[in-house]
């Protein structure tokens, strides 16, 4: 019963063949086809009875929109044409042969903003870019930065976690209460505090993913509840001081001064990047696929080396490379690999691109969502320990709301989209650097805290507007 005779067909086969023969021609057709041919495609609505409409548009659809029967190799220019003219011209130089492209603007705007911030403050006060100030800055960013890395995870699936500030405060308070009040060893208290953050995240994630409570509400409840628990643990004094020589205190007070260690680490990081890039290039070349030019890999490596060695040199002129900064960078690298290079990360990103699509593709949506909130809770607790370490006391400071707002602001300013699916954990580093630089710069200039808040708010607003504009631009040329 395999193949039977077919009835007569009424199809424009000849026209189809003409289309194919035009294939070799320019990409303009392809681009126009992209615009004209874009159809709502159903997008969740039922299309029944609309076949007339769908065929009405065929005259508008250029043949290039969809090309079959051609083995021609990918035209690289076609990618760039998808972007608006100005952006395209600006990015052509920056964009790598593969990797950066398709990642929207990436971190370019945030890098630019950081550069401007530093130049402005340096021109207003010579001490801003001094080794001492930069060293303090590099430690100050870590607490908020850790929390922001967790926020990136949540933003990537298109949700929000408002409880991270309170969780950070709770972790600090729990650690201090266990260590100081109950005499528990530090390492055990740290493990319990961090696990508590993970558990809180799991509870919130479960309520969101399985019960269906909006993340906003669940985590708002968490914000209140964990804050209350923190105040309860801190007791009547509202703060608990702990040892200045202990494990937690050393997180932000340890520095690596030995040049052998610091430059060695910088060299190791750079070499690692180079080796991974070359290995990737080799594999792609072997498989006959487009790969980065060797020159480009070297250019990137040299750029990375310049940044790494400059940082080490500058920090070395004060106290050395802070342990806190190293841990922060390690967390960023690990989470970045997790998000970009593992099946788990792919599924997190997929949720940001479309929950239903991910579900139909076989992604365990609820499990992934719960895990994301757990990551957020865990990193919030870790960040809380760093904040407490800086003050060598657990206090109400992290729970005050500033930490929460700064962490979310950092992720968004750094380039992670509030709308989900777009961003990386490096944006947490960039964003928190910008925010902390502004705070530090204004403190140097003696700007009043209220004015500081207003300016930081302005920067966040600008970042969100930028994010929304980027999204709209993306919508106008395709879907996001």
């Amino acid at each position, binding site marked *: 019963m395999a193949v039977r005779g077919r009835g007569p067909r009424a199809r424009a086969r000849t026209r189809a063949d003409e289309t194919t023969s035009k294939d070799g021609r320019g990409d303009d057709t392809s681009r126009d086809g992209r615009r004209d041919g874009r159809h709502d495609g159903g997008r969740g609505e*039922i299309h029944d009875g609309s076949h007339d409409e*769908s065929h009405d548009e065929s005259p508008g659809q250029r043949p290039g929109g969809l090309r079959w*029967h051609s083995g021609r190799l990918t035209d690289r220019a*076609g990618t760039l044409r998808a972007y608006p003219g100005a952006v395209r011209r600006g990015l052509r130089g920056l964009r790598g042969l593969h990797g950066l492209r398709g990642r929207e603007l990436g971190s370019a705007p945030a890098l630019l903003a950081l550069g401007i911030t530093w130049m402005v403050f340096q021109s207003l006060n010579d001490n801003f870019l001094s080794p001492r100030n930069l060293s303090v800055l590099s430690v100050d960013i870590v607490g908020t930065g850790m929390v922001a890395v967790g926020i990136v995870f949540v933003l990537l699936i298109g949700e929000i976690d408002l409880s991270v500030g309170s969780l950070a405060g709770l972790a600090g308070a729990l650690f201090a209460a266990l260590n100081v009040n109950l005499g528990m060893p530090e390492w055990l208290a740290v493990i319990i505090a961090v696990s508590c953050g993970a558990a809180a995240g799991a509870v919130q994630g479960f309520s969101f993913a399985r019960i269906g409570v909006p993340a906003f509400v669940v985590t708002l409840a968490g914000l209140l509840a964990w804050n209350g628990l923190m105040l309860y643990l801190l007791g009547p004094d509202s703060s608990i001081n702990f040892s200045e020589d202990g494990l937690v205190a050393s997180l932000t007070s340890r520095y690596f001064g030995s040049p052998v260690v610091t430059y060695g680490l910088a060299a190791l990081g750079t070499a690692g990047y180079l080796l991974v890039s070359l290995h990737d290039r080799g594999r792609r070349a072997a498989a006959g696929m487009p790969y980065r030019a060797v020159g480009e890999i070297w250019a990137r490596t040299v750029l990375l080396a310049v940044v790494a060695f400059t940082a080490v040199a500058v920090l070395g002129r004060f106290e050395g490379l802070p342990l806190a900064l190293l841990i922060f960078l390690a967390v960023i690298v690990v989470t970045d690999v997790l998000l970009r290079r593992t099946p788990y990360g792919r599924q997190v990103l997929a949720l940001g691109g479309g929950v239903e699509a991910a579900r139909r593709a076989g992604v365990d949506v609820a499990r992934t969502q719960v895990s994301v909130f757990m990551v957020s809770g865990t990193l919030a607790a870790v960040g809380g320990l760093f904040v407490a370490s800086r003050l060598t006391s657990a206090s109400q400071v992290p729970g005050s709301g500033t930490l929460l707002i700064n962490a979310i602001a950092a992720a968004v300013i750094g380039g992670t989209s509030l709308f989900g699916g777009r961003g990386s954990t490096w944006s947490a580093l960039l964003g928190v650097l910008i925010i902390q630089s502004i705070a530090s710069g204004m403190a140097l200039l003696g700007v009043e805290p209220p004015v500081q808040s207003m300016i930081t708010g302005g920067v966040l607003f600008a970042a969100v507007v930028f994010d929304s504009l980027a999204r709209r631009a993306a919508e106008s040329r395709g879907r996001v």
Partner: protein
Amino acid sequence: MAVQPLLALRGISKRFAAVQALVDVELEIRAGEVVALVGDNAAGKSTLVKVVSGAGPADRGVIEWQGGAVQIKRPQDAQALGIATVYQDLAMCDNLDVVGNLFLGREIHRFGILDEVEMERRTRELLDTLAIRIPDVRVPVATLSGGQRQVVAISRSFLGTPRLLLLDEPTAALGVEQAGQLLDLIEQLRDRGLGILLISHNMGDIKAVADRVAVLRLGRNNGLFDVNTTSQEQIISSITGAADNSAAHRPTRPEEAWP
């Protein structure tokens, strides 16, 4: 000629709150044949697809796969059987690139790290096999045209080397030429021995590729026709309800309705 059907649905029913979307629906699809599923708005076509694909399991009824009853509760179950689905809304993650979408949910990895090179190689290989051309497999699918997205969605369904392909309105978003090429592809696949369930509104498409037409009306079977011996008017009147095929009201063995 008694050939074991690839997929047989027996008495499938599904209810959404107050709406009885499917009532005792029967359907059989054999290897190497294209069955068109037609019906008016709210006839239950997409619901039936979701029942088979695991995205929306049935409340009642039996699904038989090559003669044996199977449970399809999740999309993974259907994939494991060899049922691939291309949804009407394509169901793609717009922020991921073509490779990412193709391998979503079945990523290739080495020691837990995604093997992007291998996935990209297989993507290119697959697109070549299907004679599909996408300018760049590393752009987010958001930047592709409707037609390109459609081909990506279809090629995605081929990764698991499926036995049965469900296509929900595959030509709705395509122009005439593209639709024609898609129909060519459907024929190629049928000739390779795949069973294909094609949901379409376009009688031209159906006449061109389908072997049999199953009509759904208000969630019930309303006739099963051989495309070569049935007039278009007959099918349409069955869709609109002008011809109330009694098949909907009595439990039949579907064979009876075939000429």
